[in-house]
């Protein structure tokens, strides 16, 4: 009997010890009326494009939690974390007092989303297809959801203007040979991944008037030395974070494969642009064009 009774005691004791509630939100939520239309909106945003859009719409105050990928955004740092987007846990999310989960389609696992819906949360899943149309659409859907249509339209208008500028620069800088751009980012140490077709970076390169040097596959694949030689890039496009992690441009030039191909330049964009097409994709396009050496729109 003894071991059993010990086990029982331990289990009963664990009642107190295990009941760790991270923020006080869980404890303060009760004693009020359950969430209604008038209750404050509390958002958890998943995916950098969604998070950035919500902040750009002026709803940053309502964000009570973000996923790990959103931490690439300076404005989202310091918000409570809800973990990796594909491995969300339902209870901690509810404990934040969340009323709505606004998430990119990577969010999961599916069972957890189902649990959140049945717990009464508004779960909104947005496409993350890396196309300009979807980027516009995402801004509009989120704006409608948050009751900020006019801000949404203003964002879209800004984006259109930036892209018109970009198109004008492309038209001005038309030369014979298209600029070949190889986009890569570091997924952990010594694991450089190359962006192929149907990636956010490919869309940015297209809008900037360049050519993605990799067309053999869709999505991201590990960098191979032979792949670089075949790609014959004029520009290597990397996220700021990757260049810092590698230790600067000199280190990049020593990466096997990149070291065997000469004559390329480095251009960087903010990390988030490699993950999804956010509301500020126009700025990334401009940076790529600067790197390509395209003349400014109003240059003579």
């Amino acid at each position, binding site marked *: 009997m003894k071991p059993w009774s010990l086990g029982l005691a331990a289990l009963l004791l664990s009642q107190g010890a295990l*009941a760790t509630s991270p923020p006080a939100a869980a404890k303060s939520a*009760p004693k009020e009326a359950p969430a209604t239309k008038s209750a404050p909106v509390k958002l958890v945003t998943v995916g950098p494009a969604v998070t950035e859009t919500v902040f750009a719409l002026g709803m940053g105050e309502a964000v009570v939690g973000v996923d790990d990928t959103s931490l690439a955004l300076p404005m989202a740092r310091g918000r409570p974390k809800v973990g990796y987007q594909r*491995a969300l*846990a339902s209870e901690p999310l509810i404990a934040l007092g969340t009323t709505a989960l606004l998430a990119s389609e990577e969010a*999961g696992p599916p069972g957890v989303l189902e649990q959140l819906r*049945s717990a009464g949360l508004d779960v909104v899943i947005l496409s993350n297809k890396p196309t300009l149309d979807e980027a516009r659409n995402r801004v509009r859907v989120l704006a409608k959801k948050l009751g900020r249509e006019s801000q949404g339209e203003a964002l879209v208008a800004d984006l259109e203007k930036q892209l018109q500028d970009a198109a004008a620069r492309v038209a001005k800088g038309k030369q014979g040979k298209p600029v070949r751009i190889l986009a890569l980012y570091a997924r952990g140490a010594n694991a450089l991944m190359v962006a192929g077709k149907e990636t956010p970076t490919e869309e940015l390169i297209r809008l900037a008037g360049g050519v993605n040097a990799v067309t053999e596959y869709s999505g991201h694949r590990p960098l191979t030395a032979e792949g670089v030689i075949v790609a014959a890039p004029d520009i290597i496009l990397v996220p700021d974070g990757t260049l810092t992690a590698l230790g600067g441009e000199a280190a990049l030039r020593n990466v096997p494969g990149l070291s065997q191909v000469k004559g390329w330049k480095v251009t960087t964009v903010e990390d988030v642009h490699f993950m999804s097409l956010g509301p500020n994709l126009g700025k990334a396009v401009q940076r790529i064009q600067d790197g390509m050496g395209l003349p400014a729109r109003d240059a003579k």
Partner: protein
Amino acid sequence: MAPAPASYPARAPVNPARLRPRPWWVLGAVLVVAALTSLSVGSVRVPLLGLAGSLLGALGVETGHRLEAVQEAVLLSIRLPRVALGVMVGAVLATCGAALQALFRNPLVEPGLLGTSGGAALGAVLAIILDLSIDSRLGAFRLLAVPGMAFAGALGATLLAQRLGTGGGRSETTRVLLAGVAVTAGAGAGIGLLTHVATDAQLRTITFWTWGSLSGASWSVVGAAAVPLMAALVLLLSEARSLNLLLLGEREAWHLGVDVERLKRKLILAGALGVGAAVSASGVIGFVGLMVPALLRLGMGPDHRRLMGASALLGAALLVVADTLARTAAAPVELPVGALTSALGVPVFIVLLARSKGTL
């Protein structure tokens, strides 16, 4: 009242009379406490009194003690299905372990060692990589693609291990175990290769499968898994008496009227059904099948008429406790419960190995 077998000389003699009538009550109480603990602990506090009231309320009995709406939603749509799945999966894994250990007359056999879990995981991973679950041509089979492939993999791997381990019409333990190790290694290699052609989304799903987690438990998952899990449990528990006879040796059991080959087939099929269903609902959760029967055998002797049922109860309790830890230990991140059970299981395995001097 049988004395302890001679192969465990190091153990202090247990007075069987002290244990005989109690295990059901004790194990039942442990399971109930574990389940209630799991229901009340987590990021969202659910006080016990309100918990009882809400549970009764869900059954149509009003007590006046109900939880807040949010707490009740967490309880009824997140924690309750999770505990239900944990109870079923834990019970099936432990009972499978007990049955297989009797079948091979070896206390160190468990579904993970026989290749059953590895095969199930390989099947599931194949289904994920081939995107069978979103292939519209499959129609209604889509929902069953991953669990179905997990079951097929479990069955295929187990049969392969058994076939390889059967020499001259008799399955020899060492050979079966070696075959199981080989099959598991093969499945692991297959998964390793497949992960390199997987997309990011598939990779994450694969991680879930190879380490096990109850986090995806919803009522639909529980409903789908309940039928095969319960069927496997009933099939295994129904053969408790034959397992006792099998412990005497296959020939002796045959002389006592046990159709040994049929029994073997039935157990292996039921085991593959149970483990396949468990893996398809919650991924590979290791060592429950090894640890639970081994611990109980030390405590209450090898009579399978009691050991099988007790294994089911303790396996259920153990997995519920492990899952509670998985949810709360590193909140807001969830740990994979399979990693926790394995971490608990490895020391137990080593102790058992050290104790079993001479014959196993």
